[in-house]
Each structure stands twice: as C-alpha cells, then as structure tokens.
C-alpha cells in the first residue's frame, strides 16, 4: 500500500466531463437546427391559425418594396426579379418534386405582386404553398 506519497490532497471538483456533456449538447443542437435560409426582414401578416411548416422547403420572400429573394431550401436566398420566379419554380418542381414553397411576403405588399408569384407557382405546378405568418396580436385596439 502506497499511501504516503501525498499527505494533503486538495478538494477537487471533477470538471473534465463537463466539456464532454456540453459538446454532446452542441451536437444535438447542430443536428436538430435548421438555419433560416432567408433572412429578409418583413412584417408578416398575422393569423390565428398557424400550421407547422416542414423543414425542407423552398422560400420566396417579398419585401414591402417589392424586392424578391428566392431559395430552393439548400442554400441561402438570392435576389431575383419577378420574371425569374417562373423559371425558379419550374426548376424547383423538376429538381425537388413535391417540395412545398413558403411565401414570406410582407403584409403591406401590394397583392398584385403576390398574384404574379402565385401564378408562377401554379404554372410550375407547385402543389403546396405555405403563407408564412406571425401569431395574432392579442387585443388590437382598432375601431
């Protein structure tokens, strides 16, 4: 028995495993996270009814000034013109058949622009569209 080597062992809290636990948590978050592919700032319309949107979706965003950004859901969104949307939607339908499209349009955008985007999506035979929305504001003191 070699007990005489150290006469005073300092009180230690074992912190070595802390990093392991933390990294496990990081891995969990990294696997579950889905980064927002489109970071456009828009004031979304608010709805009472809101359904969960699947993770793998294409996104088309329209700002209040009519600027459009599109992404198929793999890379970050890129700016596009209204005329490009039909091409984008057709490509999408070919590349990822059945993938839903999220329309992230500003609540104040003139309907005309949304109409053109919807028309392109219809022509490209996209089957499912999600209208991205915010939760309804409680007790709006309107008229």
């Amino acid at each position, binding site marked *: 028995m070699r007990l005489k080597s150290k006469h005073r062992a300092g009180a230690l809290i074992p912190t070595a495993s802390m990093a392991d636990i933390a990294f496990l*948590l990081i891995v969990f978050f990294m696997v579950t996270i889905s980064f927002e592919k489109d970071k456009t700032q828009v004031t979304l319309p608010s709805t009472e009814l809101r359904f969960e949107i699947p993770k793998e979706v294409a996104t088309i965003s329209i700002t209040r000034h009519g600027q459009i950004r599109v992404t198929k859901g793999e890379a970050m969104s890129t700016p596009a013109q209204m005329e490009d949307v039909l091409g984008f939607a057709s490509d999408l339908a070919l590349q990822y058949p059945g993938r*839903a499209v999220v329309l992230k*349009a500003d609540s104040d955008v003139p309907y005309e622009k949304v109409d053109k985007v919807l028309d392109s999506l219809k022509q490209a035979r996209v089957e499912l569209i999600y*209208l991205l929305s915010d939760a309804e504001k409680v007790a709006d003191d309107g008229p």
Partner: protein
Amino acid sequence: MKLNRPSQDAEIPTSTMADIAFLLIIYFMVTATFAATRGLDFALPKDDDSPPIVEKEDSVLIEIQPDGQYVVDAKAMRLEEIFDYLKPKLEANPKKPVILRPQPNSNYGYMVDVFDTLRHIKVRTLDNGAREAYQVTSAQIREAEEQETDLGKDVNVSIPTQREIDAFWF
C-alpha cells in the same frame, strides 16, 4: 532558476473547454428559436390540364378593396359577418366554391385575414343527417390532429390569379 524538478505531469488545460462549449450551445439555442416556422397552408389545384372552371353564379365572390373593405357578392361586409353569410350557403352545398379576389393594389395582409377566417369554417354532418357549418378554434384543430378526429370539411376556397381570370372568366 528552479529547473531541476524531477518529473512534472504534463497537463493540458481543459477547464476552459466547457466554457467554450457552453458558449456554442447558447449560440445554437438562440439562432434555433428565432426561425419563424408556422403559417397557413394552401394547396394549389393538382392538375393544370383541367382549368379551374368556376361558375360565377354558383360561387361566393369575396372581393378585397384597396382600403381593406370586403365586398361579398356585391355587399360590403365586415370580416366577422362573412361566416354568418356563408353558413346557410355552405349547409345547402358544402362544396360551394368561395372565390377570393383581392384588387391588385390591395394589401396582401387583407387577403391573409380573409383566408384565415375561411380556414376556421368547417362543415360537418350531424347525426340526424343535417349539415352544420361552424367555426373552429386553432386549439380545436390541434386537438383534432392529435386525436385524429374529423372536424368536417374545409371550405372550398380558390384564389384565381389575374392571368386565370383574364383567360377563363370573361
């Protein structure tokens, strides 16, 4: 110079590792919760080969004016009145098409408001065979999804685009 200490254990300082890891965790948690991932779903007609033939007389037409006024079958209405107007029509014919026609310069938000209202309306068949149109809450819908119960049929909403209107309507 005290260089003559016999053998010191080589140690890698790992105590800061946990700090770095927790910082990363916080970063991932913050970015994960900010993504908006909810909205209204809206199924488009599956086959474009058969154009959506909507008979104007048979359907309910909801027009949205640029100032946010709703005109339902040529009568101005508030959002809350639409259900009362649709109720008898839907009970007579649950498949009655409701057409949304926002004016080009009206706001997108108004269309979403009406669409949201219409999505709350369901038509169910009662035990005595009669049909009833009623409004559901989002809590009821969530509950029905979990328990896989049937709340009834959705309203048949169509939002024709300007091109379709030009091509098929007039």
